């Protein structure tokens, strides 16, 4: 069965993915809204930056983050001015990296929902007496709830599956940076195939069930609303 180390890694992974998802669900909606509606010349550039982690090798992102986190550079220096330990090889560093790495997975479903949202629903809301922000959280958010769930779920799942970036900036510290994917790699390297099988199977079933829920239920529900 699963060892204490396995449980620790599972807990750490869930903590990392949960925290990352919370942060992303705060940052991504306004960003996606802006990307969906703005006519600014800067928009394609920002959109590309957000989408970059989709195609950039995770090791490249990890490498640059490692350099940025190092005390010789601005970010690392600034961090050390009020913290004892460096950002690199820390849980906080992992959270920052995960937010960047999973951002497109959260932004893109939201952006697509906002693009397909008929502007007239906003107009109707205002004629019913709902103010600028009130109409967003009282009417548009419930209308696009499936998209918000999809975005959160994809961000969460993608963070759980993160490997390359963690390897570069996290290292392999149990309880601090040793997440599931890294532990799995450890098991394989030390030829503990039965442990590797267990972790792999858990990840496989989790990912598959999540995608079935998204494509089989949530997405259809959202399309029914958006195409109405």
């Amino acid at each position: 069965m699963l060892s204490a180390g396995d449980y620790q890694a599972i807990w750490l992974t869930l903590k990392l993915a949960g925290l990352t998802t919370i942060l992303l669900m705060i940052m991504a909606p306004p960003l996606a809204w802006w990307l969906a509606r703005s006519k600014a010349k800067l928009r394609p550039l920002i959109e590309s930056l957000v989408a970059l982690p989709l195609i950039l090798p995770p090791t490249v992102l990890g490498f640059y983050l490692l350099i940025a986190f190092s005390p010789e550079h601005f970010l690392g220096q600034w961090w050390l001015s009020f913290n004892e330990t460096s950002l690199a090889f820390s849980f906080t560093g992992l959270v920052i990296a995960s937010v960047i790495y999973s951002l497109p997975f959260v932004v893109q479903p939201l952006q697509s929902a906002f693009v397909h949202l008929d502007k007239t629903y906003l107009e109707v809301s205002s004629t019913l007496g709902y103010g600028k922000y009130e109409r967003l959280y009282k009417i548009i958010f419930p209308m696009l709830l499936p998209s918000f769930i999809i975005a959160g779920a994809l961000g969460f799942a993608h963070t759980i599956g993160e490997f390359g970036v963690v390897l570069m900036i996290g290292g392999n510290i149990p309880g601090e940076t040793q997440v599931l994917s890294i532990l799995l790699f450890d098991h394989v390297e030390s030829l503990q195939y039965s442990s590797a099988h267990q972790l792999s199977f858990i990840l496989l079933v989790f990912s598959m069930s999540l995608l079935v829920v998204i494509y089989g239920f949530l997405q259809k529900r959202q399309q029914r609303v958006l195409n109405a």
Partner: protein
Amino acid sequence: MLKFDIQKTFKINSATTHKSRTLHFKGELNLSGVCAIFGDSGAGKTTLLRCLIGLEQCTGQIHFQQQIWLNQPESNNVRSKSAVHKPLLVAVEKRNIGVVFQEPRLFPHLNVQQNLQLAVNKSENSTFTIQELAEKLGFKELLNHQTTQLSGGQKQRIAIARALLTNPQLLVMDEPLSSLDASSKQLLLPFIKQISERIPILYITHSEHELFYLSKQMVLVNNGQIEAIGEPQQLFLDSELSLIKFAHQGLILNVLVKKFDSDEGLIKGCLDGQTLFISADQAPLTTQIQVKINSRDVIVALKPIVGSSLLNCIAAQVIDFSQDQQKAVILTLKINSQFIYAYITLRSFNKLNLAIGSNVFAHVKTMSIIN
């Protein structure tokens, strides 16, 4: 009273030019009953309405009763920062206008009851309740349905109820009946008229029938401007207005009702002292009715036609004529104080040797009652 003087500038970006076009609307409306906004497609009716609601950015002034909804100088350069000319813009949600768009625009993720509840939540002491409107507009059994399952007519009835539940000080409707079937129209038209006794209504329409049935006041919009404001009957007779091309198709006449013969289904009426028979399903409710005579349904003869099925023969005088692109002739016939148009071929015109001042007999095949 609704008083406005607004400018709306559009950028026209085509492949070759980057021009802009400015629409300028100026007018003052008495707000009682229905005020119809009438005009061709593309004339700017919807733009005018959207500016008044606040959904479209524009400059100028809008005053509603004692409230100022908009006070913004025309050019951005002149926008001064002094307190005297401080630009003022009341947001849509603060104007308290009920809006019914051409399409129902119900929220697809909510059922009927929840859609209506959204409006109720935001209104203070509404004069209507969901139950009351559901009964009047006949959607009581639909309250728990998803909006996506409803027909167009059902949705529009709910959209009208939703606008009323906000307890608006002004109701604005943009061709609300244009895409509905006849039975929905028959239900909604009297309802809208009845509502207008309590809440003033601005009503865009293409339909002369709706115009004459609902409104005592109309705004004629043509080519991005307000061409005239006045009573529909008067504006339709004014040959100076762009309305004349609608009028050429047929004019509306006032007819006094003398009696109704239910066996024959005929109203015997009086048009400027001459007798007129009009088919009707039921006795008219008023002593004066409005009848539309299509100019193509008028047969012009130099003597009364005898031995035919034609019932109506009106003595009239040709006071004007004009020719359209199809070479046909439109005669303006004066009865006494009222006018009808007759649309005849050029050959008939020449054969009858007609001229201004000719006395003729206008035979009318069919006519329709407007109200």
